[in-house]
C-alpha cells in the first residue's frame, strides 16, 4: 500500500511541522504530541481530499489543531486558576506577611500541630508545603488514599478548632483589643 500524498508530505515536512507547532504552542513536547495526533489522523483516514499542495494542507491542519489545543488548555487553565483561587490567597509580593496569622496565634497553632501524630503531620506537610497530590503522597509513604485523606482532614480540623479556641479566649482574659 502506497502512502497517501499527505502521509508522504508529513514524512517530508515533519521537522518544519514540529518547528511550526512548537512556535504556536510554546512547547516542544506539546508540539510533538499534536504532530503525533496529526499523523494518527492521516493514518486512519483512507480517503484524503484532493489537494494540490500537501505541505500547505498539513500546515493548515496543524494550525487548527494547535488552536483547539490552546482553547482546551485555556479552559483547563481557567478551571485550575479558579480552583487555585478557592484555596490560596493571592500572593502579595509587597507584604508577604499580610496573610500570615498573628504571632501569638501561630504559636498557639504550633502547639496544636505538635500534638498531631507524626504520620498525620508528614502527610499534611507533603500536601500543604510541598504541593504533592493525595495519590502522590499515598505512593510516597506506602499508605492508602483513604488514610491520606483522613490525615489531611484531621490536620485541617485540628487547625480550625485550635484557632477557634484561641479567638474565643479573646473576650475571657480582657485582652480583646490585641496588638496592632
Amino acid at each position, binding site marked *: 500500500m502506497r502512502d497517501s500524498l499527505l502521509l508522504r508530505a508529513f514524512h517530508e515536512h515533519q521537522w518544519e511541522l514540529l518547528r511550526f507547532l512548537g512556535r504556536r504552542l510554546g512547547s516542544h513536547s506539546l508540539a510533538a504530541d499534536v504532530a503525533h495526533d496529526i499523523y494518527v489522523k492521516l493514518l486512519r483516514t483512507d480517503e484524503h481530499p484532493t489537494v494540490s499542495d500537501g505541505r500547505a494542507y498539513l500546515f493548515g491542519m496543524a494550525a487548527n489543531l494547535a488552536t483547539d489545543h490552546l482553547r482546551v488548555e485555556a479552559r*483547563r487553565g481557567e478551571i485550575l486558576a479558579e480552583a487555585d483561587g478557592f*484555596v490560596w490567597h493571592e500572593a502579595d509580593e509587597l507584604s508577604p506577611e499580610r496573610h500570615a496569622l498573628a504571632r501569638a496565634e501561630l504559636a*498557639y497553632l504550633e502547639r496544636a500541630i505538635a500534638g498531631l501524630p507524626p504520620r498525620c503531620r508528614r502527610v499534611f506537610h507533603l500536601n500543604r508545603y510541598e504541593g504533592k*497530590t493525595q495519590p502522590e503522597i499515598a505512593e510516597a509513604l506506602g499508605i492508602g488514599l483513604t488514610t491520606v485523606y483522613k490525615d489531611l482532614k484531621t490536620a485541617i480540623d485540628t487547625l*480550625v478548632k485550635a484557632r477557634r479556641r484561641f479567638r474565643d479566649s479573646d473576650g475571657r482574659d480582657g485582652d480583646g483589643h490585641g*496588638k496592632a
Partner: protein
Amino acid sequence: MQAMREPRDRDEATRDVDDAAQDWFLRLASGEPSAEELASFRKWRDADPRHRAAYDEIREVWNGIGALEAAWVPAAPPRPARRAVRGGAVRGVAVRGLAVLGGLAAACAVLFVAASVDVPVLLRADHRTGVGEQRTITLPDGSLAHLNTDSAIALHFSDGHRRVSLLRGEAMFEVAKDPDRPFDVSALDGRSTALGTAFVVRESGEAATVTVAEGTVRVTAPAAPETETSGSPGSSVTLTAGRRVSYRRGGPPGPVGAADLPSATAWRSGSIAIDGLPLADALAEIDRYRPGRIVLLADTARFEPVTVRASLQALDGALKALAATHGLTVIEVTHYLTIIRDPSA
C-alpha cells in the same frame, strides 16, 4: 423557628458544615477538579452564609500557616535548650565591674572580675547582650523579648507555664497570648505576671522597676521561688498600661506611679531619654550603654536636674555636651575609662 433550636442540634449542624467545608477544601486543594465540580462547589458555598464562613475559615488558616512549616516535619531536631553564651559579651560584663584602674591593671582584672562576679549569670543566661548591644529574641511561644544593653535572661518554658528570669539589666516583653499558660518574669526576688501584654522590667542591682506599655501585669514581691506553685509570701499590685512600680530586694512593691512610656521605651527605638534626673544619675544612665565606666570626679549636687535626648549611636557626643554645659571636662583615660571632672575644683 431557627432560634428555638437545641444547642445539641446547633453543634451537630456546625459539625456537618465543617465536615462539608473540609471535604470541599481538600477536593479543590489537591488534584484537578472538573468544571462541574467547581460549579457544584459554588452552589454549595452560596447556599448558606455559614457554608461560606466555614470554608473561608479553612482557607485563612491554610494560607496563614506558611511560617509554621517546621512544626509539621516530625523528624525536626529538637531545639537546643540553651544557647552557647556569646564570647563577645564577656568583655562588657567584666569591665563594668572595674573601679578606677589603669589600662594595664584593667586588662589583668578583666578575667578575674568576670570569674568572680558574672559567671553565675553567664551560666544561667539563655540570651544576653553586651554593653551597648540591643537584641530582640523570639521566645519559643512567639513572644518577643527586647533586651537592652548589658542584659541577660534565662528561660523556663514548659507545657504549664512560661517563665523568664531577668538575670540583669532591662528587657521589654511583648507577650504572645496563650490562654493556657501564664507568662511570668522574675527579677531579683519579685515576679511579674503578664495578663496579655507588653511591659518592661529593669533591675539595677538593688531595685527592679516594672513598666507596663499594654495590657495588665501583676507584680508580686517578694515572690515564692519558681519551684513552688502556690503561696506567695509577698504582696501584689496590678498594673495597667502606663503605670509603673518598683521594688527592692526583699521588699514589697512600692507605690504605683505614672510611667513616662516614651522615655521608658526610648531604647527600643535606639535612643536614650532622660527626664529631670540629677546629673550623677543621668551620667549613670548613659554609662549603661557604653563599654567601660564613667567616673565622676566632681560635686554635682549643686547642678539642676538634666534632660537628655540622644541617639545611642552618639552617646560620646552627648556625654561631652552634657559635661560642657556644666563646665566639666571629659577625659578619656582608656577606651574603657572616662573621667569627668570639674576643672575648677
